[in-house]
């Protein structure tokens, strides 16, 4: 999948360091494996539409950005709810497969399930390929 992960919050680098040492290193040996950015004043969050200026915090936004720097997917979840990493990875696999093959990935697609050609996806014949069971 060859994908870089970048984590962003308004916390300072020193606070990131404290969290790494106190908590993250208890969960993952060596702590976070990706850079943790300090978004001072929510500057980056504001660019991406996730900065909540009332709370002074970045919301739980997630963006998949392709090699040409185009945003291909985005999601924002309310603060109290954690995310589903497997769905983000599924979308990433589907997007990478799309860029490699030009195919379209119908609802519920994951590797091994049928894809559609661009023509099929617009033909009215999707029902010939895609069955309801493929959604789950």
């Amino acid at each position, binding site marked *: 999948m060859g994908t870089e992960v970048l984590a962003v919050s308004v916390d300072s680098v020193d606070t990131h360091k404290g969290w790494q040492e106190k*908590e993250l290193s208890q969960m993952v040996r060596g702590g976070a494996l990706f850079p943790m950015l300090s978004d001072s004043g929510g500057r980056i969050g504001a660019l991406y539409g996730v900065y909540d200026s009332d709370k002074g915090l970045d919301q739980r936004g997630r963006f998949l950005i392709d090699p040409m720097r185009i945003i291909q997917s985005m999601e924002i979840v309310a603060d109290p709810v954690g995310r589903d990493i497997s769905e983000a990875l599924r979308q990433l696999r589907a997007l990478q497969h799309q860029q490699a093959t030009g195919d379209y990935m119908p609802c519920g697609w994951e590797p091994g399930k049928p894809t559609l050609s661009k023509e099929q996806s617009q033909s009215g014949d999707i029902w010939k390929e895609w069955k309801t069971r493929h959604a789950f």
Partner: protein
Amino acid sequence: MSVKVGKKAPEFTADALDQGQTRKVSLADYRGRWVMLFFYPADFSTV
């Protein structure tokens, strides 16, 4: 909303903690690579 699917991701540079070291990280550093960029409210919360 200042960003849209299908449009260019806004460029940024920030101080970052990476493998125990502090360094500058820019989106431009990752040109030619897929990037999963995620925001979260605060350290010492869930992600």
